[in-house]
């Protein structure tokens, strides 16, 4: 997906990049929020533990 975004960037299709980018962010946040839902692995603790 990141490579597709980069390809689109080279041809200047900004609208499509924005849509794909938002999809990518939503996907990422979904995963991050899932981690934080796991008991004992809240964001704060994660930052501390690493």
């Amino acid at each position, binding site marked *: 997906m990141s490579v597709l975004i980069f390809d689109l960037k080279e041809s200047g299709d*900004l609208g499509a990049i924005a849509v794909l980018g938002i999809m990518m962010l939503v996907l990422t946040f979904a995963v991050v929020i899932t981690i934080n839902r796991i008991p004992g692995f809240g964001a704060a603790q994660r930052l501390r533990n690493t």
Partner: protein
Amino acid sequence: MTIALPAESAVRRRTFKIDFSLPVLIAFAAVLCVLIVLPMSWLAYYSVVDKAGQFTLENFATLVTEPEFRGPMLTTLILATSASIFCALAAAPMGWLVARTDLPFAKAVRALVTASFVTPPFLGAIAWELLAAPNSGLLNKLYRHLTGAEMGDHIFNIYSMTGLIFVVSCYTFPYIFVLIANALDRIPGDLEDASSMLGGRTWTTARRITIPLALPALLAGMLIAFLQAMTLFGSPAILALPAGFHTMTTKIWSLFQFPPKPELAAAASLPLLVLTVMLLRTQQMILGRKGYSVVGGKTGDPRLIRLGIWKWPAVAFVFAVLMLPVFLPYFALINAALSPIATTLVTPENATLKNVWFTFGLSSTKIALQNTFILGALTATLGTLMALVIGYISVRRAVVGHQALGFLATAPIAIPGIVLGVGLFLTYTQPPFVLYGTLWILLLAYLTIELPAAYQQLSSAYKAVGNDLEDASRILGATRLQALRHITAPLLRTSVIATWCFIFVATVRELSAAIILFTSDTRSCRS
């Protein structure tokens, strides 16, 4: 997170008899060697041969003498140095405010920093292009609208060295923030109590106790930021090329354009590799010496400093900083997604979903999504499994030679993505292993890149679990595998899930190795 720490358990444990067989160790060592040693050897080999395969130092000579390489090297150094300084200026006060003061919304701030941490830097760069391109950028349009300035006047020009430094800093400062906040969280309240009991005022305590203890973390964070900025590919490709200059990473990438010059690319990659190794060693020394001396006792809760009348200015400062990597870019992206022309402000009248339909109509979108999921899931699963086994072997000292495994698993941290890309390209485009153009080569790349973080997370999880319970069950007659399954595995569950997700997210946003290794066919998942 790319923070290298040698996995060393401080506690002496009784050594087990070797029932975990030697073959396991050998198999894993072999896999790690293939992953790391093979591409790096080819990289080194290619850097000292010419097209005919004869030994030469010509490649390095070209690197040093040709202005087309010297320029990018200098640019890269300036970029990395300034970015790490800017990051420190923003991240250090923020880290302190969040960890040691009664700053309101501290939790939200941490969450937002995490958001900027997981935002792919190249996406941020494109978003900032939408915001601050000199003529079409939304912020410059706003400026002209407000001041009535002429077309052509602008306050921001993102296509410039300053613009690049700024955008790189936006997505690098979380590294420093996390380290500083960690360090400050860990400073035991007792130390500060002692200081205040002895009559030290709040600010004296901060100056005499808190800051010195946080300083190593700051330095280490700056080194990490330097490394990140130095090895980043996406943002320079997006912002530096239009402005007419290269960094090392974009230069290496351009050496793969037809006709490819892999020898030069290999030679140009080596300085990045060497510098990374050196900086990581420095960082270990700094952290190893001071930062962790207080880790041992996490006794009292930290004393929170009251900000008083400074509360609201502090909030304003923190959110002003967070505008830059999070709010403004996200706004620009959403605007571009819904607008007929990317940098025209969306209004209810002109809002359109045509971009959405266009994007979903692309034959490459579906394939890209599919590949992203397949690769992400595969890498995360295999990476977690490998880290589990290697972590177990090295923390429990299950086999002789476990140190080597631990070392190999952490070593890739010193290999920048683009360098690894070049190495893998050289290794797998020729017999005996022709993997180029398949998903496998990307899987190898991602596995190698993510292994150190996974290994660190899981080996510290093993240490946290301890092996007393395991020992107990073994004394009661369970075999090692039974003990693992019924005792250790359930205790490790959350860490495993977290590691899996961590690798998945990191894989999704990786660009610099992928850009070298991707062919159109990879996307079709034909392998």
